[in-house]
């Protein structure tokens, strides 16, 4: 089949009556002599007729639809769908809300546990370590040290005083006469035991002068402890000489004075 493109683009407008009358007459004259264009026109008309047939079917189908009710139905479905995630979200929120006290309790417990753990095992300041070691009470180490020092001085003073009394009694004791008071073996032994306890504290607090005199007193008491309560003249003389040569009473007084002064 040969081609004819002369009016090819106008046949639709021709069918729809959208052309000027003069153009329509011109095309009608052409159709009388051109079978190609006549066939194209017939096919196009038939095609549009088919389209009209489909449109008719479409209109028939559309007439069966309730267009007034449809918007409401669609809107309800759209709203129902959009509310589903919200409901799911709200139920999720409710679930979370129900678990909130438990969660809050757990979190609070964890926080408390962490705080307590921190308080128990936290790194302590150096000046508190000594206090912790020596006392369960959380006091400044300086305070505890001062108290310990004071107690050590008092114990030392007490020891020195009682030793001083004993030494004075020794100096005043009569030969062959059994001592009725401080020179009893129990008292001596008691002072020796006390000295052992005092040694560590004298070293700890570096009470060197006090320790030196206490050591001499201890040595004397050791000698006495090996003697019988009833001292012989020689034994008594020997002890007295030790006391006097070592100037024990003087030294005791000096140390006592130092201890008392440093205590102020």
């Amino acid at each position, binding site marked *: 089949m040969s081609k004819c493109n002369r009016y090819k683009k106008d046949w639709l407008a021709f069918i729809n009556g959208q052309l000027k009358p003069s153009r329509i007459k011109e095309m009608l004259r052409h159709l009388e002599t051109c079978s190609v264009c006549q066939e194209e026109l017939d*096919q196009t008309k*038939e*095609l549009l007729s*088919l389209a009209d047939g*489909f*449109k008719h*079917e479409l209109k028939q189908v559309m007439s069966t639809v309730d*267009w007034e009710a*449809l918007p409401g139905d669609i809107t309800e479905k759209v709203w129902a769908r959009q509310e589903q995630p919200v409901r799911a979200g709200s139920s999720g929120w409710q679930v979370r809300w129900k678990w909130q006290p438990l969660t809050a309790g757990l979190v609070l417990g964890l926080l408390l546990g962490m705080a307590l753990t921190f308080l128990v095992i936290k790194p302590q300041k150096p000046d508190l370590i000594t206090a912790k070691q020596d006392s369960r009470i959380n006091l400044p180490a300086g305070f505890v040290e001062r108290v310990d020092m004071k107690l050590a001085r008092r114990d030392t003073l007490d020891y020195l005083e009682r030793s001083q009394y004993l030494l004075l009694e020794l100096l005043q004791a009569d030969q062959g006469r059994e001592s009725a008071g401080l020179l009893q073996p129990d008292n001596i032994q008691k002072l020796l035991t006390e000295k052992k306890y005092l040694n560590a504290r004298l070293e700890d607090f570096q009470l060197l002068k006090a320790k030196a005199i206490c050591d001499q007193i201890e040595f004397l008491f050791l000698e006495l402890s090996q003697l019988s309560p009833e001292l012989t003249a020689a034994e008594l003389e020997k002890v007295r000489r030790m006391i006097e040569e070592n100037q024990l009473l003087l030294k005791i007084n000096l140390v006592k004075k130092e201890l008392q002064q440093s205590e102020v």
Partner: protein
Amino acid sequence: MEQENVNCLETQIELLVDLVKKGDKEAFMRIVSGYQQKVFVLAYSMVRDREDALDLVQETFMKLYEKIQSYRSGNNFQAWLMQIARNQTIDFLRKNKSRKQNSHDGLEMARTELSSNQDNPDRFNPKEMIHKAVLALPEKQRLVFIMHHFDDLKYQEIARQLQIAEGTVKSLHFKAVQKLRKLLAPQLGGSYE
């Protein structure tokens, strides 16, 4: 009548969209009411099944609601809505394999059926074939053909709704007719070159 409603609606569409964005149910219902038949015409022209077309109308407006927040004021609302409808319908045709038999694509199926029927004009069912032929058109040609022949819109109105030149609409329509003539040549009782 419906076209008048649409024209009236177009003057209010920006306000209605704003209201829908804020969750106004009534405004959404008015939009559905104004455009439902246009969407139905498009959907039915492509699926040729009343219930499927109604489902597609519903799906289109559901999708519209999902996307409404992304609609920007000043855009062509109807063109945007019809684009959603086209996408929903094409998705439907692709997913609905039971109706496609051995084909993977509804449009391809239409082309295949049309070519196979060329040898058997006795099987020619005019409405079925014009439907399949329209389905086989390129998208823009199909849209213009549907709007002009099934929705009774003038070239000028199509141009306005699609925001393209009227000359472009005429050209697309001419190409659509030529293509349909070619696809339906055996059934139309003639040859096509």
